[in-house]
């Protein structure tokens, strides 16, 4: 891959980090803030994986290897959070 692409990716990562830092100063409603910040983090992760770790150029099977645990982890985190909603039966 060309050096310029790497440099671009690097610049992008720095910029998005700056955006993250700016966002928290903006007094946004909490759920919007969380969504923005976590999506940005996700985006950064994807960019690093695709370009720095070259997943873009590797067989898809390699990406699948790491996508599976992401889904599994999402299940773990998601369901465990759902499960704690306090339950008080009527009566």
């Amino acid at each position, binding site marked *: 891959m060309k*050096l310029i692409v*790497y*440099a671009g*990716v*690097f610049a992008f*990562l*720095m910029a998005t*980090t700056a955006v*993250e*830092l700016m966002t*928290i100063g903006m007094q946004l409603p909490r759920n919007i*803030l*969380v969504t923005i*910040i*976590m999506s*940005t*983090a996700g985006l*950064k*992760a994807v960019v*690093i*994986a695709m370009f*720095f*770790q070259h997943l873009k150029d*590797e*067989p*898809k*099977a*390699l990406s699948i*290897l*790491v996508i*599976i*645990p*992401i889904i*599994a*982890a*999402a*299940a*773990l*985190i998601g*369901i*465990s*959070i*759902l*499960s*704690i*909603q306090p*339950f008080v039966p009527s009566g």
Partner: protein
Amino acid sequence: MVQETEKPSVPPAWSIKRWLFTTNHKDVGILYLLTSVFFFVAAGWLALLVRTQLGAPDNAFLNSSAYNQAVTVHGLLMVLWFLSPFAIGFANYIVPLQIGARDLAFPRLNALSYWLYFFSGILMLMSFFTGSAPDGGWTLYSPLSSQRYTPFLGLNVAAAGIIMMIASITVGTVNFIVTIVRMRAPGLKYKHLPMFTWAMLITIGMMLYAFPSLLAGTLILFADRALGTLYFSAPEGGAILWDHLFWFFGHPEVYIVLFPAIGVVGDILPTFTRRPLYGKKYIVLSLVAAAIISFVVWGHHMFITGINPTVMKLFNITTVAVSLPFDVITIAMIETLVRAKIRLKAPVLFAIGSIALFVIGGITGVFLASVALDFQLRGTYWVVSHFHYVMVGGSAMALIGGLYYWFPKITGRMYNEKLAKTHFLLSFIGFNVLYFPMYLLLDMPRRIVTYTASTGWGQMNLLATAGAWIFGLSQLLMFYNLFVSMKKGMPAGPNPWQASTLEWATSSPPPFHNFDTIPVISEGVVHLTNGAGHSAALGAKAETEHVHETHTSTWPIIISAAAFFTLLGLLMGFPVLQLAVAFGVIAVYGYGRERFTVRHEENAESWPYQGVENVKLGVWIFLASEVIFFSALLGAYIFVRVNSATWPAAGQILSIQHGAVNTFILLTSSFTAVLALVSAKAGSRKYTMLSLLTTLVLGLAFMLNKASEWKELIEHGFTFNSGLPASSYFITTGAHGVHVAAGLATIVYLIIRAAEGRYTKGDSGTIEHFGLYWHFVDIVWVFLFPLFYLL
């Protein structure tokens, strides 16, 4: 293809050196089998103590403390140190043979797996001599497992043992996946893989994604106990958090111990019924389906913890759904018997027996899947009976069948059939006398040291205890039989059972290099030909010349010993810790520099990873497990945070500035790591070194900044034990920091090697692999930073 001049050949089988330093898959397989059998005996002995205590009401043979330790260690040893490693022992020995490979992809890593396992077992056993062995049940429920309620060093030592065991498993998963995926003999497609290899591939896949969750849980437990963090003892969901982390691992784990057994049965059945396995395709699909679903059923162990009813129902449905694939598997196996010609030898008796017991265990599992019934059955002997039917009946019995099945291959001699049949009969009867009465004890709580006569449970318990002794003693027949037959049995010949899979196509025991020429499969026929195209007789013992690989290494055992002392050092402090770490660094360095040649077959089947060479694939597999590990850590943090009524706002305690600076540093270091790769590829030693050096400096800066941040926080009273915000912060950033430190050590190594002129002559692979890891550590921080500092 690597061709190096010969090293002195392997030490002979009678020398101790051979067994300490071997890296050959068959040797390591034997080591695994022997060690796991040792743990089987140890854990079995504990079980007999437990059963003896329960044989009569109001018995005082064991006191509560001894009983609880026996029950707990029995469970831990059987599940983690016997069943899985026993299966892995077979996998070591058999899988390379079945796929026509000469060894595993990374023989030294394989030895490392074994020695980590070996030392982890020592840690586990040591716990008996350090106050008290774990005594809170193999599930290690919190907060009973916290320092406050279990104030013994023993549990810390045991937790260290579990951590080391998981390290062994992780190394093993990398090795087996790469081997099965990329080293199959030419023409050996997935659809041709024998059932055992298939089952192992799926098992290993589950291990890869399940164990990191236990690792995260055990590390937190260890930190809670040794450093005073308060995750699991926190009323803000701590106990439930452990449940989630444990059972997210725990349910896949029960399939992890089962699937190899299904594989063994799947290989034994066709051999002895003289018919191909019925619906093998559907069996494999079912295993895959069950493996996937097994990751979303864990909540059935938490039905009555007061979880949300919708989630309860969801888990009820997934649990019921996961029994369907098993239905397919059993039906297919039973269908195999139709119009067969069943030779009722010991292996197939065990195989069929295990199917029968599994049917009973599976059906009673469906009762437990019913959340309404679980409001009664939870925590009773019904559960105990259920999981022993599946784990001992379904799994251990089949694996014992496998032992008889492959014994001739491994030793070259036949066992005594009569004794083996007697063994089967006694253990099958003993098993049912032992466990069936437990179904009738569906009111009796598990894990109680005794009960009063007025409960009326005495008779059934007495029966169970009698069964336990029959079952236990019957195993002696096997040991005697195998021990004597090893020396005196009839020579077996290459294929005593007229089996069809490749391990039988070579002599018994197979030569060091397995096959004189790698088999080639085409049009449904296996050709064992040498380069000239001349067909060698199947199983003939020809000592043709072959490329010599390295078969021994001193480092795996040394690294494992260092890891062992490091973990002990964490509990004992200075100077053990420092010495052990230094020792470990030297050992890993020595490992890295050792010349170790492995032969790669160029034309091996490797779909779908053709272009991805072994080490790179290995690194990715490892990272896949790390994804679960860090997700579990972050998930734990999110979980307790959602459960807490209050949490410090962003910027209130953790300095956003510190975090942001470290983010910029780490991102930059990723960039310089990429530059190192680019320079290495371009052949510039100067720029390779320079980029590596910059990466090193940046990494150090990150660590220094982190250290000063920790110091400041601790000085301001934000300490390990000052509450959940602090505990979660220190554990998560600590785990990340350890990863950074490991990366830095690697960079130092890379710099030394680069200075020696490596990496710039088309051999930049190592730098790339390091980069994959380093970027991953960076990605983790990309999530850690906002989660802890910004939100």
